[in-house]
């Protein structure tokens, strides 16, 4: 069992969730309520990671933030190491591929709030900030949480983009999914089996949580 890889995966999942919490809330809410030309295009772009092979996302990340690019050089000059093949690069990749997982459930949850409820809140004297904190988030929290759980579970299982952008550097970018691949390549099926079983159990547990949450969302607004 590669505990280093395992804890790196957990850390990557938690950091991704932390970054995507505000993104999911604000982008999800914006897409739920805003009406603007090109909205469909924005939604399609945010959903792309769902259908693209992870290697394609990884490829574009490499060519846009790699060591030879302006962004990559700026990063290296500022922080003293490359963005790609580092934990930060892994976080960036993970955030991008998880955008639809965090945003879409939040968006659906905000959309499920009847417009009159929000109007009633405004007419009751609640400022837009209070409407968000006291009405919208309490009514949409299951959707927001569902997105985050989904993001966490998906991060644990992500393989292609992590390999492309992170390489397989122990303690830095070698996540448990890659460690399993590594062990299989080295004919160490015992270690691979333990890690695979652990990942399976964790994924099942998180998905179970998601289904429970989604049934509650349905009940509340049904």
């Amino acid at each position: 069992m590669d505990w280093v890889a395992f804890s790196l995966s957990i850390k990557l999942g938690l950091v991704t969730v932390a970054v995507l919490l505000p993104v999911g809330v604000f982008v999800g809410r914006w897409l739920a309520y805003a009406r603007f030309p090109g909205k469909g295009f924005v939604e399609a772009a945010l959903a792309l990671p769902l259908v693209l092979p992870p290697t394609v996302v990884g490829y574009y990340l490499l060519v846009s933030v790699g060591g030879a690019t302006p962004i990559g050089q700026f990063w290296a000059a500022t922080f003293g190491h490359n963005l790609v093949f580092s934990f930060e690069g892994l976080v960036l990749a993970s955030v991008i591929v998880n955008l639809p997982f965090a945003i879409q459930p939040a968006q659906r949850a905000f959309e499920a709030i009847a417009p009159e409820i929000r109007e009633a809140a405004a007419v009751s004297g609640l400022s837009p900030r209070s409407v968000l904190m006291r009405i919208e988030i309490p009514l949409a929290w299951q959707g927001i949480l569902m997105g985050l759980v989904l993001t966490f579970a998906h991060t644990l299982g992500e393989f292609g983009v992590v390999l492309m952008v992170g390489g397989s550097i122990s303690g830095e970018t070698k996540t448990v999914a890659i460690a399993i691949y590594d062990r299989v390549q080295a004919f160490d099926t015992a270690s691979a089996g333990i890690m695979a079983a652990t990942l399976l159990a964790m994924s099942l547990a998180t998905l179970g949580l998601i289904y429970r949450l989604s049934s509650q969302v349905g009940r509340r607004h049904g």
Partner: protein
Amino acid sequence: MADDALAVTLRQTAPIPLDLSLSCAAGDVLAMVGPSGSGKTTILRTIAGLYRPAVGQVSVGGASWLDTSRRIDLPPYRRRVGLVFQNYALFPHMTALANVAAALGHLPRPERSRRAGELLELVHLADLHTRRPAELSGGQQQRVAVARALARDPDVLLLDEPFSAVDRVTRQRLYGELRDLSRAFPIPILVVTHDFDEAARVANRMCLLDRGRILQTGTPRDVLARPASVQAARLVDLKNIFSARIVAQDGPRTWLDWNGRRIETPRAESHPVGADIAWAIAGTQVLLSRTDLDQADSQPNRFAATIRDLVHLSESLAVTVVLDGQDAPLLSMTLPAHYARRTGLGPGSAVTVALMPEGIHIMAREGEGQADLA
């Protein structure tokens, strides 16, 4: 205008055509009545700040909430307004008490729940503080919505079809409560409804709307019995609308020629002899008797007719008769439910109808629809 507790002016052509001005004094209950799409709800939403018309002014007690010419448009949470939504729009995750307390942001925190409790008591929900909206009946939800709307200490109270989602018995009780409320809170109250009886029960003024315009404003009784135009008469569902010509004015009386029938009415000052007019009579102003038992032959405006249709309603009888004569006009009226049974009337019975002169209402004929007035 500025002296009115509430003054509203709206003009736009699209997406919802609006061209109207209305005002409402403190303590008045103004019912806004009209068919779907007449702009009733849009007026309420504009006052609350949820809708912004192309051109409009809303002033409350002299303070301007909306003035498109001066670029004033206060957001809803800065307008002291209470709005009861058609489906109440209670916050589903909060108890009844918390729903009301949520609108008490202007009070210090410790006082909110005490005041929310008082308001729930006012709407007779003192023992249901901890219930959530899903655990309340329609009538109870409506009361929570009213309590929440009053919580802000509003300068205007707006109710959007507040009785449409409750059963008939509850509705009758809520009518009385709304009247009590208007005495307890002397602010302008606007009620949107499409039910004329409801308007007459809860409001002391009524505004008849059609396609974004006001056709008539007055007491509900006046608007319903004396519509200002044929269009208004049709909207208030006055069924008996006909055309005639004024043939004589004699002292306190005016005489009409209605396709050869002579009709006597109180003097119609604004219409000269020879004028083509429209006239209407409410079904309650038509007397009907069996021809063979008819005794009141001294009454004016008596015509022979045949019963065409009888419909038993819950408390009354809707009768349609066809008058003798080439034009065979149809006349609708309502009678007490027991009347048909007592007199043995049925379809085909020969009857005599008498149109009460005071019930006849004369209107100018309009450009539209003259031919099909009858």
